[in-house]
């Protein structure tokens, strides 16, 4: 378990946890979405760093790639292509809700919204 061997994973985990922290602790709705974005992007980092091979190259078979036999694993790339798009879709829906909340409540701070609801 050498230190260098897992540096990538630990950084990915640190990024995940800071994204997670922003989502949990911040009250501002848009800040939460930014946290959510960081959280999912760092998961992609974890996936891709799994697929990397030292001395390998991008999984494209063309004239440049003859001198390599090792290619990095294409499956994580496919999965992450899907996951990025899913992340953007979730952010878009989240932002639409935030805009509607701002119009109906006049604020996007969670505790102000809760205050407005409870005051009814």
């Amino acid at each position, binding site marked *: 378990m050498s230190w260098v061997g897992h540096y990538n994973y630990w950084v990915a985990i640190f990024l995940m946890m800071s994204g997670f922290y922003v989502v949990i602790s911040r009250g501002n709705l848009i800040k939460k979405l930014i946290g959510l974005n960081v959280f999912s992007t760092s998961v992609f980092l974890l996936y891709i760093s799994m697929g990397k091979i030292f001395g390998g190259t991008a999984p494209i078979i063309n004239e440049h790639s003859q001198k390599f036999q090792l290619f990095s694993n294409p499956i994580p790339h496919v999965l992450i292509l899907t996951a990025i798009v899913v992340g953007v879709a979730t952010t878009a*829906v989240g932002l639409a809700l935030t805009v509607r909340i701002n119009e109906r409540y006049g604020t996007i701070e969670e505790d102000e919204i809760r205050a407005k609801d409870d005051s009814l």
Partner: protein
Amino acid sequence: MSHLPILQVIIPLLAAPLCIVFNNRRIAWFVALCATWASFGVSLLIAQQVLQSGALSYDIGGWPAPWGIDYYVDSLNAFVLLIVTGISALALPYANRSVEQEIDPRSQPYFYSLLLVCLAGLLGISITGDAFNMYVFLELSSLSSYALIGMGPRRRALTAAYQYLVMGTIGATFILIGIGLLYSLTGSLNIQDISYQLHANNIIGSGNRTLLTAFAFITVGLSLKLALFPLHLWLPNAYTYAPSVITIFLASTATKVAIYMLLRFCYCVVGSESIFQLTLGQIVLLPSLAAIIVSSVVAIFQYDIKRMLAYSSIAQIGYITLGLSMSNHSGLSAAILHMFNHALMKGLLFMTMGAVSYSVGSVYLTDFRGLGRRMPFTMGAFIVGGLSLMGIPMTAGFVSKWMLVQAAIELGWWDVVILILIGSLLAVIYIWRVVETAYFNPLLELEEEEIGEAPLSLLIPMWLMVIANIYFGINSAIPVEFAQQAATLLLGGM
């Protein structure tokens, strides 16, 4: 060459864009109706085939299992498919009048399209044999359900949808991490193949730490999705403020599919005989008992009846996970059967709520005063739903409660038996609160006279559910058959 499994998902998936082509409310509803009924027919055919000739398998794109994505239908997910398509087939005719009153006319075609996408997502999850494909369709169904809840009539629907989005996405990302770690251990994404790899190079026995963490994350992610007790905070708001049709649809199906995923990952991937499995049983036992008792007690003090029923859903999910945590044959079949019965009960109860909010406008306890006389059919349906929730004989609820208690006695867990019965007694209290106000409190004179019975298009699906509730109370041969076959399958390991 049976294309049934793929047709099951493709019909709603491709009908969804069709809804918004014409941007006309009526056509969108009609397309959605045909799509749901067609997918219900397909799921009936699949169930029939599975009962006769065992599991179906379908390789998408022609590539065999670990390389391509394959659909694998055994008696467990054939049963879940039946539940999801059955409920949607009943919810759609209900939706016509109820959506007209609650959703802005211009966004109704999009509403129906999103509903179909959510249905396709749920079906996709229950039928696929590939882990990442399950994640994609999980994301598909949750994304559309965030938007659907957000379209609710009251402004609090937006905050409820937002809260559900944040917690749902965190749950989904946890599942993604779990699948990633599983992938890094086995190199494949197909569930059966993962299980084979894990057993082949005995990763399971050696107490591999990554496997443990992968499972921890998948279980936490899924319990966020199925609102297991400590992680259920999003559910009451989401179900209360969503449009009535969505509450009916989600309450009966979304949590069931999440439970199916939990069953699939726990039992098929790891296999039941490993010691690992027992610890999972213990982990799930405590929250489900807490769910049964605490959320039933909270449900008693609720002022808004839809919120009360939402809390009672959390309690009922507690029953299902309780059956799951027993990890013996009768406990598991009781859990699977209760998935079906709970879908019937909750679908019926939320349909009555939809009818009341259609004719009265809102579902506070005070609105129910004197409804017994004004809306006899709706309140009659509510009583049958309530009886089924309490577990009175002749109703579907009784059968699953009977099996659950029997399984608990088989294991000699007497404290669990007592808790189950206390749970159903608490259910008696919060159901009877509503019945009492509906029938025995005189209607206030000054309330306007025009509160009439709900329109026929709401009543027919409601009373179909009543008949289903009673029919499956009298002879539940088919669901019990499915549940027991599925339980033997799960315990025998894929």
